[in-house]
C-alpha cells in the first residue's frame, strides 16, 4: 500500500503536477488495488465496497446533501399530513367538540334543576306530615293525661266523647300522610333517575378528551418538526379570574385538599 511517490512520467508534466498526482496515487492507489483484487478474486461485496469507497472519496458532500434532501422531503410530507389533519380538526372537530360540551352543560343544568325541583317539592310534604303528626301526638298525650280521672259509666262516656275528635283528626291525617309519602317516594325515584346525566355527559366528555389527545399529539409532532420549543400554556392566567375546580393531575402548585386545610391555613393567617 505504501508506494513510493517518486514515480516519474516522461510526458512533460511539471514537477508540481507530478507531486499532486502522487498525492492522488496515494489517496486512490489502495482503493484501486482493492478493486483489482476484488475483480480477480470475484468477490462481489468487496468489489462494491471498493466502488462505494471511491465514489465517496470523489463526492464526499453529495451523499450528505442527498441524505439531507431526502430528510427535508420526508419532513415536508409529514408536515403536510399533520397540517391537513390540524386544519380538519380546527374546521370540523373543534366546533363539534364545543357543541358537545355546550350540550354537557345543558344536560347537567337540566338534571340539577330537575333534582332541585323534586327536593323543593318534597320538603314541604314531609314537613306537613311531621307537623300534623306532632299535633295528633299532642292531642293523644293530652287525652292520656285526662284519662286517669275517668271513672264509672259517665267517665267512660266523657272519655269516648273526648276521644272522638282525635279519631276524626286521625281519619283526616292518615290518608293525607299516605298520599304525601307516596309522592315523596315517587319524587325520590325521579331524583334517582335524574342522576343518569352523569353517564351520558361522561361519555361525551370522554369523546372530547380523545380529540384533545389527538390535537395534542399533532401539535407536539408539528413543534418537533419545526424544532420550536413550545411553552406550556396555563389556563386561567388572568389576574383575579380564578382557575376553576381542582382537576387531579392537571392543577399545579399547592392546593388545599379539603376544608380542614383551608381552615388551618386561614387560622395560620390569624382569621
Amino acid at each position, binding site marked *: 500500500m505504501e508506494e513510493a511517490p517518486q514515480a516519474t512520467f516522461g510526458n512533460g508534466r511539471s514537477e508540481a503536477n507530478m507531486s499532486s498526482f502522487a498525492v492522488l496515487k496515494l489517496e486512490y492507489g489502495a482503493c484501486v488495488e482493492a478493486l483489482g483484487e476484488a475483480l480477480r478474486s470475484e468477490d462481489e461485496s468487496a468489489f462494491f465496497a471498493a466502488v462505494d469507497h471511491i465514489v465517496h472519496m470523489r463526492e464526499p458532500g453529495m451523499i450528505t446533501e442527498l441524505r439531507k434532501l431526502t430528510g427535508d422531503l420526508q419532513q415536508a410530507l409529514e408536515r403536510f399530513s399533520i397540517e391537513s389533519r390540524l386544519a380538519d380538526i380546527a374546521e370540523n372537530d373543534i366546533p363539534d367538540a364545543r357543541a358537545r360540551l355546550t350540550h354537557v352543560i345543558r344536560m347537567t343544568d337540566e338534571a340539577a334543576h330537575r333534582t332541585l325541583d323534586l327536593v323543593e317539592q318534597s320538603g314541604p310534604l314531609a314537613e306537613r306530615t311531621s307537623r300534623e303528626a306532632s299535633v295528633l301526638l299532642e292531642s293523644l298525650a293530652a287525652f292520656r293525661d285526662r284519662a286517669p280521672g275517668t271513672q264509672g259509666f259517665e267517665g267512660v262516656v266523657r272519655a269516648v266523647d273526648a276521644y272522638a275528635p282525635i279519631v276524626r283528626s286521625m281519619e283526616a291525617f292518615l290518608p293525607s300522610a299516605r298520599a304525601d309519602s307516596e309522592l315523596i317516594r315517587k319524587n325520590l325515584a325521579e331524583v334517582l333517575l335524574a342522576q343518569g346525566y352523569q353517564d351520558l355527559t361522561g361519555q361525551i366528555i370522554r369523546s372530547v378528551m380523545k380529540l384533545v389527545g389527538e390535537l395534542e399529539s399533532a401539535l407536539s409532532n408539528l413543534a418537533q418538526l419545526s424544532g420550536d420549543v413550545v411553552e406550556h400554556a396555563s389556563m386561567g392566567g388572568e389576574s383575579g379570574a*380564578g382557575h376553576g375546580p381542582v382537576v387531579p393531575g392537571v392543577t399545579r402548585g399547592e392546593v*388545599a385538599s379539603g376544608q380542614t386545610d383551608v381552615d388551618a391555613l386561614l387560622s395560620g393567617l390569624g382569621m
Partner: protein
Amino acid sequence: MSKDLKFLVVDDFSTMRRIIKNLLHDLGYPNVAEADDGKTALPMLQAGSYDFLITDWNMPGMPGLDLIKAVRADTKLAKMPVLMLTAEAKREQIIEAAQAGVNGYVIKPFTAETLKEKLDKILGPGK
C-alpha cells in the same frame, strides 16, 4: 335570633345558587337574593340593604375576588360580612382572598354543616 338577615348569593351557575338558597332556607334564613356575577351584584349591594354576601370566585364579567375588593373599597359596604364559596383551592388564592378581606372561605364541594359552621362563626353567637 336575627333570622331576617338579608343575604345576597353570587354565583354564575343557577344550580349552585339554588342549592345555597335552599341550604340557607333550611338554616332559617329565608331572605335570599341572587346575582350571577360581580357586575350584577355590586349595584344590588349598593342599592339594597343586604346583611351578608356569599360569593363564588370564578365568574365571567367580574370575578368574586374583584367584587370583594370593590365591597371593601366602598365605605357603605366595607364592613359587610363576606363568605367566599368556591372551587378555587390553591394556597396562594386562599391567602389572596384573606388579604382582600373575606370573613370566611369554603371550598366546593361543601356540606350543609360546613356552611352552617362558617355562618355561625362569622355572625357570632345568637345570630
